[in-house]
């Protein structure tokens, strides 16, 4: 990696952190658990890196093992994280809809 790339990536990192603080500080306390499980799913984005690792491993055994494990763990995060967040958020109901039942 050349230093210019590093600066460029660091720039993106810093701006994203500020953006994250802005957006997430508006999430109400009542949704903090879904926020955590949902952000778990987002941190499963490592899957992108894992796919590249597993897909470029060739036929070298150790690379293949590392790649498969990385894809598996990241996929658990993505699939499990989004599904459980959806399940939880489905439970939050407003009073008016409650009365109709």
């Amino acid at each position, binding site marked *: 990696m050349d230093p210019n790339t590093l600066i460029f990536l660091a720039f993106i990192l810093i701006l994203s952190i500020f953006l994250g603080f802005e957006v997430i500080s508006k999430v*109400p306390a*009542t949704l903090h658990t879904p926020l955590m499980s949902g952000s778990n799913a987002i941190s499963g984005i490592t899957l992108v890196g894992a796919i590249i690792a597993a897909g470029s491993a060739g036929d070298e055994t150790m690379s293949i093992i590392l790649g498969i494990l990385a894809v598996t763990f990241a*996929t658990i995060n993505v699939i499990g994280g989004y599904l459980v967040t959806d399940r939880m958020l489905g439970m939050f109901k407003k009073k008016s809809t409650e009365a109709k039942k």
Partner: protein
Amino acid sequence: MNIDIFVNFIYIIAAILFVFGLKMLSSPATARRGNFISAIGMFLAVVTTLLSKQIIDFHWIVLGFVIGTVIGAFAARLVAMTQMPEMVAIFNGFGGIASLLVGWGAYHATPNAATLTVVTIFLSVLIGGVTFSGSIVAWGKLSEVFGGKPMLFAGQKVVNALILLAILAAGILFMINPDTSYNIFLAIVILALILGILAVIPIGGADMPVVISLLNSYSGLAACAAGFVIQNNILIVSGALVGASGIILTNIMCKAMNRSLANVLFSGFGATTVGKGKGVQGEVKPIVAEDAYLILEAASSVVFVPGYGLAVAQAQHVVRELGELLEANGCEVNYAIHPVAGRMPGHMNVLLAEANVPYDQLVEMDDINPVMNTVDVAVVIGANDVVNPAARSDEDSPIYGMPIINVDYAKIVFVLKRSMAAGFAGIPNPLFFNENTRMLFGDAKASISAVVAEFKG
């Protein structure tokens, strides 16, 4: 068009969808759609990555997808809402190990990479490893596999400091000569894992909300570090969003306990069970279900203050039933939730939502406290420290200065409790002896059911 430019373009769209998804989490009405939008972003990012030129072989990817999808889908379907903290803890760990493996894979593929890349590999492995083993310990404590007590030993801080120094020294050796340092690299992996374990074992079960928030943040940072390794923007953006989210939650939790992060991480709070603070004297006034019913029946506003004890007693559903009966009786019903009630941020809200309590009745501490003196009856169920007035008045109390829900300002307070035994960390609670407090002894579910039966009968 160059395929890699196309892939990066889609990554931008994915990042936008993640941000919008998180923005929609600002209201329960739009949150579910927001989660879906975020999932679409993830889907786009993953599918386009498969088009990338570096991918020469798909079957290992498919194998990982299949195993991960099966485990993830089952875990998400089967987990009980009371177990959400354990699930989030272990998922943080999976995020960490995935970043560690990506870093390891990158090093394994090109051991003679440029120094800057080697630095990012080191960070990715270090943060990922600490996140993984720390999360496993947190999971073990939450699910009580390891026991929730803080584990302290003599010289713990010295040992941790030495391990950190060893990691830094090994890191420098590794960065100087990466292509001949495979053994040093493995040593770094192992030391990172040990550091994660040692960092979490001294922290008590009641402080776990802080720890899983912090580990949540680390799992994001681990993804960021992996993003630097493979020079991928989408990993950096998403990792930063998650990192920020974890830090915000950690901060909220610490404030709600009036403690610094350093105090939570290093003090071993709760290891000593000596309850300090003034011994409280006085007479408790027990009450039976029939009398509780008569008071509730006459009340025009009732606030329930649930703690984790409510979930332990599985009393959410019967409390909601009582709430509905009170409303039908013309009473205003709210649920006041302290930020550290439950085992993770927002945990009580999810448990009550599961029991069909509408979210507009869930009120935050800062909204209920100013109007507490207009409340006729405050019903404390399975909560103790978060309603302890000693936090306001007794400077010797270990929880002095912690913000509490001021239930003692309500006209009457019902406290549901198994017995007069002291709560966590044995902090005496003067609330129980107050003039306007009535104790309803027994199992919370049985007590509330008895009141509900009175209403119906």
